[in-house]
């Protein structure tokens, strides 16, 4: 039991920095952000139907449906509009 807990604890410790590394939301002030409308037209251009774009710290979290009808939940750096690996990157 103790061994299992120890391994689980280690796994969390090892995993946390890698999650942090993938969280590349912008740390710039909101005035430096690209407008949401730009991201929206970019997504529409890719054939996505955008349901919602939330601003979460330096990220835009997108809820959309792609061309194939698949629900997509992704985040973009609000300053560069580059895709972020973890859709919840701005929430942590």
């Amino acid at each position, binding site marked *: 039991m103790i061994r299992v807990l120890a391994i689980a604890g280690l796994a969390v410790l090892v995993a946390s920095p890698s999650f942090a590394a993938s969280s590349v939301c912008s740390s710039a002030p909101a005035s430096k952000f690209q407008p949401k409308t730009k991201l929206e037209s970019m997504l529409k251009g890719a054939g996505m139907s955008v*349901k919602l774009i*939330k601003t979460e710290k330096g990220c835009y979290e997108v*809820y959309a*449906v792609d061309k194939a009808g698949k*629900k997509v*939940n992704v985040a973009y750096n609000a300053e560069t509009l580059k895709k972020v690996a*973890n859709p*919840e990157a701005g*929430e*942590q």
Partner: protein
Amino acid sequence: MAATDMAPNGGNPVRVWDPFVRIFHWGLAASFLVAYLTRHGGGTLHYWAGGAAAALILLRVIWGILGTRYARFSQFVRSPLTIIGYLRAIIVGNEARYVGHNPAGGAMIVALMLAMLATATTGYLQTTDQFFGDEGMQKLHDLLGNGLLLLVLGHLAGVAVASLRHRENLVGSMITGRKRPPAPGDVP
């Protein structure tokens, strides 16, 4: 058998919580814990934790009608007046010991089940075409989830108070299903 299950008067512990009630209880507790820990992002684990919680509650509702004596709603769901009266008695310090759920505990069970079901439903709805990316539904789900967390904390506090007041281990009883037999003045 743990010493806490033994009656001071030497009576044998009585069976109170049947196996379904106990599996339901710990299954729901685990579902809540997993769902709470995975609350950011609504991933697969979060989805299935909510699904498990909803399924457990629906089975519990059936068991609350058809189940064993202490599992039935008719045994532990009481009127608001009785509940308020019992809460007052707790404050004064002269509340009766119940072998089954006491009136406050019964009210908490109903509140927990309703809040959990509402949280699971609003979570599920966000996976449907109609409510995917619906900010209102997301906010409602968050609100219900936080309310549920408060209820769970209240439930833990209630179990602690009742265990201390009546000198019994209620957590242990939910594992073994057994409780100390009723003494004079207890509600059997």
